């Protein structure tokens, strides 16, 4: 009798232990998958030729998903803290908003005009959109998910970037060969001349960098004393990114990127990409340079330290991603 009782207690403990273990495993799996999902670095590639966005896992260098968006997606920006991706569709005159945690389309914002490029303010409360046809910069309120302001700017507003240090909105006017710098309250601070056909912009600290497509050059503008400096790159540069005083520039007609040392003022290296490399973005955590190749419907991923090609990955048709396209 006593023996039997002991046995039953033992049995109960064993079964409890098994249940507890299962429960812990499930908990672990649940949280570990969530943690991983939250911290994954991804590239969002707008494919203008087939109305999709390719989502690439930058840790495994594999395609995770392809989402349908509006017609002819081009411009993009990512709210890093809110984990929202904004994609501008120039064919349907609207913006697709993607939730970057689950990679689902959560909203379409109607504009009624073609959105070319996008950026956001530091607080991620507003997204700014250049309106190519009406020469405006539209403000989208993130809380309201609609256009709340329209600012008339110079002709053909193309690239846009937000300078966090000075709280400036910066716009390139492609056909006027100028950059316009506005305060966050939309007051014009300065209009400054660039090279011929300024397009993609990058800004950080006291500097703005802009690719001059027809001059095969990049202009650097000092936001404090307004001095400028220009350096030559390959043919028809589209966009530029800077990290640790090194500039990375896409040369669309050469099928290369130029890597330029801003201290020594010399080109460090020129790397072959896919065909017609248009835009690029960096991931510092993983040491990556990601380039969109419009001509070969792919992205090229390079190691920022070794400057070696790690992988070329197929995307949808005519991949562009004009703007910041990496969820860091």
């Amino acid at each position: 009798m006593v023996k039997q009782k002991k046995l039953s207690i033992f049995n109960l403990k064993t079964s409890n232990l098994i249940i507890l273990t299962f429960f812990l495993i499930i908990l672990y799996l649940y949280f570990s998958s969530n943690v991983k999902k939250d911290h994954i670095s991804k590239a969002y590639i707008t494919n203008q030729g087939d109305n999709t966005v390719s989502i690439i896992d930058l840790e495994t260098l594999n395609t995770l998903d392809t989402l349908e968006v509006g017609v002819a997606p081009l411009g993009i920006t990512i709210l890093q803290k809110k984990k929202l991706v904004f994609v501008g569709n120039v064919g349907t005159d609207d913006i697709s908003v993607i939730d970057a945690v689950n990679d689902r389309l959560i909203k379409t914002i109607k504009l009624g005009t073609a959105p070319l490029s996008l950026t956001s303010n530091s607080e991620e409360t507003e997204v700014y959109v250049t309106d190519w046809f009406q020469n405006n910069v539209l403000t989208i309120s993130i809380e309201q998910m609609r256009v709340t302001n329209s600012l008339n700017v110079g002709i053909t507003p193309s690239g846009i970037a937000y300078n966090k240090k000075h709280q400036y909105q910066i716009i390139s006017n492609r056909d006027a060969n100028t950059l316009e710098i506005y305060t966050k309250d939309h007051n014009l601070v300065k209009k400054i001349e660039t090279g011929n056909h300024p397009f993609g912009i990058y800004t950080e600290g006291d500097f703005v960098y802009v690719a001059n497509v027809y001059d095969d050059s990049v202009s650097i503008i000092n936001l404090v004393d307004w001095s400028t400096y220009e350096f030559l790159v390959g043919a028809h540069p589209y966009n530029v990114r800077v990290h640790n005083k090194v500039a990375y520039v896409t040369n669309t007609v050469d099928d290369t990127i130029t890597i330029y040392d801003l201290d020594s003022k010399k080109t460090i290296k020129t790397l072959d990409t896919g065909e017609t490399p248009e835009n690029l973005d960096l991931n510092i955590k993983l040491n990556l340079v990601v380039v969109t190749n419009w001509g070969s419907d792919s992205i090229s991923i390079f190691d920022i330290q070794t400057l070696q090609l790690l992988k070329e990955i197929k995307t949808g048709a005519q991949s562009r991603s004009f703007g910041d396209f990496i969820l860091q």
Partner: protein
Amino acid sequence: MKKIIFTLLAILFSTLAFSHGPTPQKVQESVTIAASPEKTWEALKNYSEFEKIMKVRSFKDKLMKAKYELIKTDVPFSDYNAQIRVKKGENDNESVVQWTARFYRTYKLNPPIPEGQDDATAVAAVKEIVGPGLAGFKKSVESQ
């Protein structure tokens, strides 16, 4: 008749996607040639027909890739850049020549887009250059 069909197609396409917006157009066509990639590449470098319409920007021997820009001006498209690549075919004596052109329509301002200055017209005009151009090159290489 051909012109009527073309016009109808142009109208149809102009009302579909890409009817507006700053969208570069792409025409990409390939032809298979019965000659080794090396022979085809050499032939391409010496082929003068393409240079009547395009100026050579560069020849990259290692990649077997030629880059061109446009010299013709009386065309219904703009900002044209192209490349012609020679790739391996299914066997050693076969090569694939791929022509990729990137360009825009001539009218870049606000819609409505004037007739003959839209994307469909630009694409059709470039196809008129690329298709017969590749066919002519194939004939030239294979008759050598």
